[in-house]
Structures are given as structure tokens and as C-alpha cells.
């Protein structure tokens, strides 16, 4: 190949051809892949990362922020999702907006994430044993605890040890927590009167300069884009991995994994560059870190005579148990200023209804003896409309517009919640043979539905939210609950982890039961999802996975 040909038709001169056989090939440059790559490259191994999406220019961030505010652009436009590359189907009971729920590129979905980083509770690892549904994890909280601490240091978590409901921890967070908002100070006495305990929120966002990134400057657009880089995203981690010697190939979607004479060993990842040329990257170990949709899809696309149902799929569970977190929320207005929308992150939550969602309080939250799942309560700092977004989409201007902005902004309050969804076998990521992507591969079909427990828990979350808002004196104007809930864009469960090869895809070491040199670092391994935002757990699992891969090299 001549030099221009080596860039895969991109035109940037970057070599996108395969290396010789390396120690580790990582598929995906999101949080999990970046952390695995950095850890293994730092330990001296030859690492190649293959990323389907592009390497975004960090100097474009403010322009992307503008897209997130201006009405012409929808959520997928901010990070250029959509089109033939990202075609998908959603034929389940509920529509799934997949391309609003992920980003392809160096940094992955952490480019558009909110940045909330909580540890799962001890109970989350024992859902089947304690509550009789879902599946237990193959290890307990204590096993993951040191990895959580390492993950918090990697991500530079700003947090405080004031959460009485959190699992035990060994040391303070690396950075101090962001102080509570003015809006939080309005909620606090109402919660106290009701007997609801509130506490700070751990954020993967610099409250002080950390790891070469500046402190947050308050753009207020964290989700979907942090222009300043104060929010941790995996592109920072990828740059560190490259400094450690990892090679990252962007615009290189992996088409399939090949096994050789031994069907229990992957020999190469076949990836395509934009010019349509296929390349084979050989490696001793392979780590799939392509998220909860593309990871099972790639395994299913890697079917062969030796693996007729897809790679690592002897259990038939690849793609099964697709699980999300559900949003419940309520909001309204007070008769006083609430100072919302200065920042795009939250500073107060309550995990009081996590381990015991039916517990009442003596002073106003009714008890429930229903079969419920964990609830995480959030007090929003971005309730109600943002003035600039209102300004850009009205039919008025001048003084009439200003009057509308003044009437529409300033007194809103809102609460959110994440609710655990029961893992369901019928919820799955399958291949849709009737549609293909830009490389001719069947697209993912996300089939998704909710069970009665999940809907009951959403209603319970609304009950608690309404009680708090009533105590605050708010006029409730909107509620999102069991009838109109939406997903939190957390893709879990599709290569579930367990000790029984008949009931799971990967083992406690994140290695697939069927293929000895193939591991998965992703929320796709969560057997049960809990109701905490998953990325800190993804990061902890990625570091654990890296340790196991290193042991076998």
C-alpha cells in the first residue's frame, strides 16, 4: 500500500492498517476500552484499540455545545450519530431511541454523559438472593470495592462521604464535592420535615483542577457536551493510553471476530476502513468494550460453522436480558426564585429509598408493602426551561419575547429518579436480517419492554416526589411515571456475567465462558442493573478485566 492508501480513505494521513500480532486488541474507545487500554499499555503490553467512530477534534467542543442549544439540531446531531453506519431497528413493545442513547467515537458515550458516578450497593450484587428476582453477581461488593477506589481516582471523582446510605468506602473521594445549589437549600428543610435524608452527589467533573484538566467553569451543558473538559470523558483516558504506547485506530468498525483451528480462541478482529478495505488485527487477547448494544451484535455477527449461533453464545444468552434504567420525575413551580440552569449537573440526591423503596417516614412519606425495586432520587439543578432555548424557538421577539422569558424562567423546581428495571429474557438485542448497515451487516434490533414491578416502582418514585414537592409548596405541573417513562440510556445485561456457563456469557473474570482469550468490559455484563448510574461500575469492571487479561499474558 502507498502512504495515502494506508489512512483508509479518510485523507488525514493516519495509518489505519493492521499491526502485526499484538498482545491485546480492544474493541471500542469508550470508558471501558480506554481504561483497559491505558492499564495494559501502562503495564508494558502492546495494545491496539479499534474504534468504529471518529476521533473528534477537541477544539470543536464549543461548536457542539451550540448545536446542543439550537433547535435545528437534535440530540444525535451533536456527536454526528445516525445515517447508514448507525441504522437500527426497535421492534419491541416500546420504541428504543438508540442513536440518542450513544455516541460512536474516541470517548464513546462518555462524550455526552451526565457524569454521575455512584457505587452500586451491596444489595445490588445479591438481587436474586435478597429479593427473589434478577440474578446475583458472581462476586460481592467487597470484591469490586478496591476497583471502585481505583476507578474514582482515574475519573477524578468530586464527592463527599456524607451519604449514610452508600456502601462502605476506604478513603475520601479524590476531589471535594460540589457544594449544594441554592435550589437544594429550598428542598432541604422540606425533606427534613418529611424525614427524607439528602446528601451530596459524586460527580466525574473537576471541582478543582485535576489530571491536566481544569475545574468546571459552568457552561451548563454537561449533557451532551462539556466544552471545557472539566467533565471526565474517555477521550482523556485514550490520550493517556496513547502516551503509554497504545495505538488507537479510529473509523475502524470491527465487522467480525475470527476463530482459527481452535474454535475456543479468537485469532483476529476484522475491521473495515471507510474505503471499504477490510483489515485483520491479530492479537493474543481480545477485549470487547463496545457497549451494551454493539458488543452482543458483534458476537452475533461473528457466527461461523464452529459458532453457528454467534461467538461465545453456547448459552444462547448473547443479546438477551437487555436492561435499562427508567426515569421517573415530577416538577412544578414555586412562588419564589429558584435559580435553576446555572450548571448542568446535580448536587443533591437521596438514596434513602434505594435498599428499602417501600419504607415510609413518620412525617409524610407513606409506606408501601408492594414488591418494589431500588429507587435513586435526584434534585435537579436544571429544572424548567433555559432562557436561551426558549428564545430560539418562539414566535415572538423584542419586548414580547423578553416578557415570555421572564414569565417562563425562574421559579421551577424538579425531581428526577432512576429506577431499576427487572432483567427480562425477552428483552434483547438481536440482528435484524431485513436491514443492513453501511458495510452490509444486519443492524441491531433493540426489543424492549417493562414489567409490572418496574412500573410499580416508577409509581412509587412519583409518590415520594409528589410528597416532597407538596411539602415544598410547589404546584406540580408535570409528572413522568409508569405510563410515559423513558430510558436513561444505560445499556446493560446483554452479555451477562455469572458462574454457570448455561446461565451467563462471561465469568467472574469478565472472560467469555466459551472463548478463552475473549473478554468483555462493559455494562453488558451486569446481571442486574441496580438503579445507580453505571459508568463508575463499568470503570471498576474494566480495571478488573485488565488485571485478569494481564494475568493471562
Amino acid at each position, binding site marked *: 500500500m502507498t502512504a495515502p492508501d494506508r489512512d483508509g480513505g479518510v485523507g488525514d494521513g493516519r495509518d489505519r492498517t493492521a499491526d502485526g500480532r499484538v498482545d491485546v486488541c480492544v474493541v471500542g474507545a469508550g470508558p471501558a476500552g480506554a481504561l483497559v487500554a491505558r492499564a495494559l499499555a501502562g503495564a508494558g503490553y502492546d495494545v491496539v484499540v479499534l474504534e468504529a467512530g471518529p476521533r473528534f477534534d477537541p477544539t470543536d467542543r464549543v*461548536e457542539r455545545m451550540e448545536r446542543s442549544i439550537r433547535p*435545528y439540531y437534535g440530540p444525535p446531531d451533536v456527536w454526528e450519530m445516525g445515517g447508514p453506519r448507525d441504522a437500527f431497528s426497535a421492534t419491541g413493545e416500546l420504541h428504543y431511541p438508540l442513536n440518542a442513547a450513544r455516541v460512536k467515537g474516541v470517548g464513546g458515550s462518555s462524550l455526552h454523559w451526565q457524569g454521575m458516578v455512584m457505587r452500586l450497593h451491596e444489595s445490588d450484587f445479591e438481587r436474586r438472593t435478597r429479593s427473589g428476582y434478577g440474578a446475583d453477581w458472581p462476586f460481592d461488593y467487597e470484591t469490586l470495592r478496591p476497583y471502585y477506589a481505583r476507578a474514582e481516582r482515574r475519573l477524578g471523582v468530586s464527592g463527599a462521604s456524607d451519604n449514610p446510605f452508600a456502601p462502605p468506602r476506604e478513603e475520601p473521594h479524590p476531589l471535594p464535592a460540589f457544594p449544594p445549589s441554592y435550589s437544594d437549600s429550598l428542598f432541604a428543610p422540606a425533606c427534613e420535615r418529611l424525614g427524607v435524608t439528602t446528601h451530596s452527589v459524586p460527580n466525574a467533573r473537576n471541582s478543582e483542577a485535576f489530571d491536566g484538566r481544569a475545574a468546571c*467553569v459552568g*457552561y451548563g451543558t454537561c449533557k451532551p457536551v462539556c466544552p471545557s473538559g472539566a467533565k471526565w470523558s474517555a477521550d482523556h483516558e485514550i490520550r493517556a493510553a496513547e502516551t503509554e504506547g497504545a495505538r488507537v485506530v479510529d473509523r475502524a468498525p470491527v465487522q467480525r471476530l475470527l476463530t482459527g483451528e481452535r474454535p475456543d480462541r479468537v485469532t483476529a478482529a476484522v475491521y473495515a476502513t471507510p474505503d471499504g478495505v477490510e483489515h485483520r488485527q491479530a492479537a493474543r487477547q481480545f477485549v470487547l468494550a463496545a457497549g451494551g448494544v454493539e458488543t452482543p451484535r458483534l458476537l452475533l455477527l461473528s457466527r461461523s460453522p464452529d459458532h453457528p449461533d454467534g461467538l461465545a453464545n453456547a448459552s444462547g444468552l448473547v443479546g438477551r436480558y437487555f436492561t435499562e434504567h427508567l426515569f421517573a420525575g415530577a416538577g412544578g413551580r414555586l412562588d419564589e426564585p429558584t435559580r435553576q440552569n446555572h450548571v448542568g449537573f446535580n448536587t443533591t440526591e437521596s438514596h434513602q429509598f434505594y435498599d428499602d423503596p417501600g419504607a415510609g417516614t413518620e412525617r409524610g412519606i407513606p409506606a408501601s408493602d408492594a414488591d418494589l425495586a431500588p429507587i435513586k432520587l435526584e434534585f435537579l439543578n436544571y429544572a424548567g426551561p433555559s*432562557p436561551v432555548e426558549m428564545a430560539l424557538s418562539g414566535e415572538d421577539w423584542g419586548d414580547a419575547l423578553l416578557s415570555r422569558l421572564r414569565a417562563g424562567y425562574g421559579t421551577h423546581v424538579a425531581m428526577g429518579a432512576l429506577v431499576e428495571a427487572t432483567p427480562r429474557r425477552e428483552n434483547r438485542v438481536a440482528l435484524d436480517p431485513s436491514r443492513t448497515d453501511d458495510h452490509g451487516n444486519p443492524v441491531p434490533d433493540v426489543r424492549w419492554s417493562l414489567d409490572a414491578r418496574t412500573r410499580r416502582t416508577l409509581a412509587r418514585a412519583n409518590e415520594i416526589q409528589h410528597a416532597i414537592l407538596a411539602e415544598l409548596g410547589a404546584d406540580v405541573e408535570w409528572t413522568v411515571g409508569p405510563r410515559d417513562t423513558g430510558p436513561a440510556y444505560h445499556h446493560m445485561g446483554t452479555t451477562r456475567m455469572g458462574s454457570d456457563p448455561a446461565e451467563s456469557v462471561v465469568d467472574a473474570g469478565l472472560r467469555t465462558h466459551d472463548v478463552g482469550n475473549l473478554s468483555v468490559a462493559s455494562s453488558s455484563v451486569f446481571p442486574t442493573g441496580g438503579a445507580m448510574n453505571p459508568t463508575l461500575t463499568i470503570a471498576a469492571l474494566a480495571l478488573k478485566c485488565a488485571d485478569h487479561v494481564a494475568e493471562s499474558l
Partner: protein
Amino acid sequence: MELTRRDALAALASAGVVGGGSAAVLARERRDGTDRPTGDRDRDRNRETPDGTLPDALVATAEVVYPSEVSGVSGFVRAYSLGRFEARPDYREGVRDAVDELEEHARAWYGEGYTALDRGSREELLRSMGVHSAEEDPVGTAAERVRFYVVNELLFALYTSPAGGRLVGIENPQGHPGGTGSYRRGPR
């Protein structure tokens, strides 16, 4: 409320102009002196604008779409557009195309150029074109392009700036890097 060029620089920070574009504005600021209100230097600056007609048309539109209680509109809009154009030439072309539409409609309906119309006629023209009810679209109809490149561009500049935010009661509006102090403060 008097808009200053410092407000324009703050608006440019929200619009992704932190390099050459704002440097151009700052260079002019050094020539012009302090951060005093800008409205009184508009005539001089006209000669220095990157294009003679675009900033005039933007100012003429801002006089319609900005609330009457702000002053210094001309200096704010000129400084903002200078920085914006220098940083993003493609954007400037979009504005030029949209302003061409305004000029064509003005000449067809009123027999004179857009900036020569009085404020009431400019507003009437925008409404007649349907700009007030159009959704912004950089490749859409004339009204949609004017909404995207002219009206919403101006509203974005104003309401992502602390000056515009303060009109509504938020000194660190979405899109402005105003720090992490204001979210903790109560109303004043």
C-alpha cells in the same frame, strides 16, 4: 441595560470564538480604548467591519428582535459578528446568503434596501416573510435561513451572554462559562 464590547466578548465565548475572532475584537478594543459603551463609536467602526453590509443588516435586525430596554446594540452586534465571522468563514457565508434574501425582499416590497427601512418596516418585512413563525434551518426556505443565520444568531448571542441572562434573572446562562459560584447564590 447598556451592552458593551465586554458583553460581546462574553457572547463570543459562548459561540465558540476563543481564538482569532476574539483576538480581532480585542485588537480593535486596544485601538479604541477602554470598555466604554460602544454605541458612540459605531460610525468609525463601520469602515473596519469585515464586510460593509452584513453587520449593518445584523444591527438593523437586532433593533427589531432585541428588547427595547437594551442599548449599545450596534457595538455589541458589530463586535460579536466580527469575531464570529473571522472564526467561522462558513458561517459568514450563511449570513451573507440570508441577508441577501432580506435585501431582495426589501427591494421587491419596499423599493429600498433592508437597512434603509425604518424599524417598523423591518419588523413588518420579517413577519411578512414568515421569519417569526419559521423554525431555524440553515438549508431551508428563505424564512428558515433568516431565522437560523440572522434572528436566532442574534438571540443566541444575547441570551447566552451574562448581560442577556441578567435581563431574565440568570447571570450565568446556559452556554456561558460563568463559573460555579452563581448556582449557589440566592436571588438578589
